[in-house]
């Protein structure tokens, strides 16, 4: 039976060949990969974000011992680290797309992109280290 083409068959979310096809038509550089990274990190953030924010309802204003004990447990520690990593990947891609839209000076654009990346690496690194410290000290 012939396959009826769907609009969704042609979207970059579904079609693994889209990068190759774009490459033959003319370069989109890393556009498709970045587009996919934004969606993949978004999909990861749906369960991870809900889990973390649901936990924060209780923990955001709790005392240090309660929060430390939670972050030292294996499942919260792992999921918090994954949440932090996915969050900063998603934030870098998203902020980059904002900069690309509104910053039209090459030097400012490069400076902005590098600042966003540097800040994300420092913040993600600090967050992961903090969780690891609590987890390993437990």
């Amino acid at each position, binding site marked *: 039976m012939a396959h009826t083409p769907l609009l*969704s068959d042609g979207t970059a979310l579904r079609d693994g060949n889209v990068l190759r096809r774009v490459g033959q038509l003319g370069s989109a550089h890393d556009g498709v990969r970045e587009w996919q990274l934004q969606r993949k990190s*978004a999909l990861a953030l*749906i369960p991870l974000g809900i889990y973390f*924010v649901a936990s924060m309802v209780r923990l*955001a*204003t709790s005392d240090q011992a309660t929060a*430390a004990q939670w972050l030292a447990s294996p499942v919260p520690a792992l999921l918090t680290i994954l949440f932090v990593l996915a969050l900063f990947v998603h934030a870098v891609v998203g*902020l980059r797309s904002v900069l690309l839209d509104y910053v039209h000076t090459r030097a400012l654009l490069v400076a902005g992109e590098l600042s966003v990346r540097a800040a994300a690496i420092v*913040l*993600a690194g600090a967050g992961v280290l903090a969780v690891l410290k609590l987890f390993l000290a437990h």
Partner: protein
Amino acid sequence: MTRMERPLSPFMFPVWYRFQLTSLMSILHRLTGIALAVGSILLAWWLVAVAAGGEIFAATHAFLSSPMGVLLLFLWSVAFFYHLCNGIRHIVWDAGYGFEIRSAFRAGYAVLGVTVLLTVLAWLPLWLI
């Protein structure tokens, strides 16, 4: 011949474009995304404060428990729930579904409704205590 002064993005909305829920929700998605990225500084700070303990945690805890801190947490939660729900709406579009104008508006109202619902659910336990 005089050339028309053309308006440039992001200043097209709402002066040059008629108000529409869909375009408002589009720019809100980006604004909440930026806000959440800025808010992630506080998230990383909080994790470090828990690990550090002592005075750093005490100061962080005092800030988060203050009216200003609670307001920030509230706005952060609204931004998070909106960006989460509207992000799912975008994923559905990216998968190739729901492009009809009716669907776009229906999903838009659903996103707004669920955002309010999730915000209330998240804060209800704190109000009840």
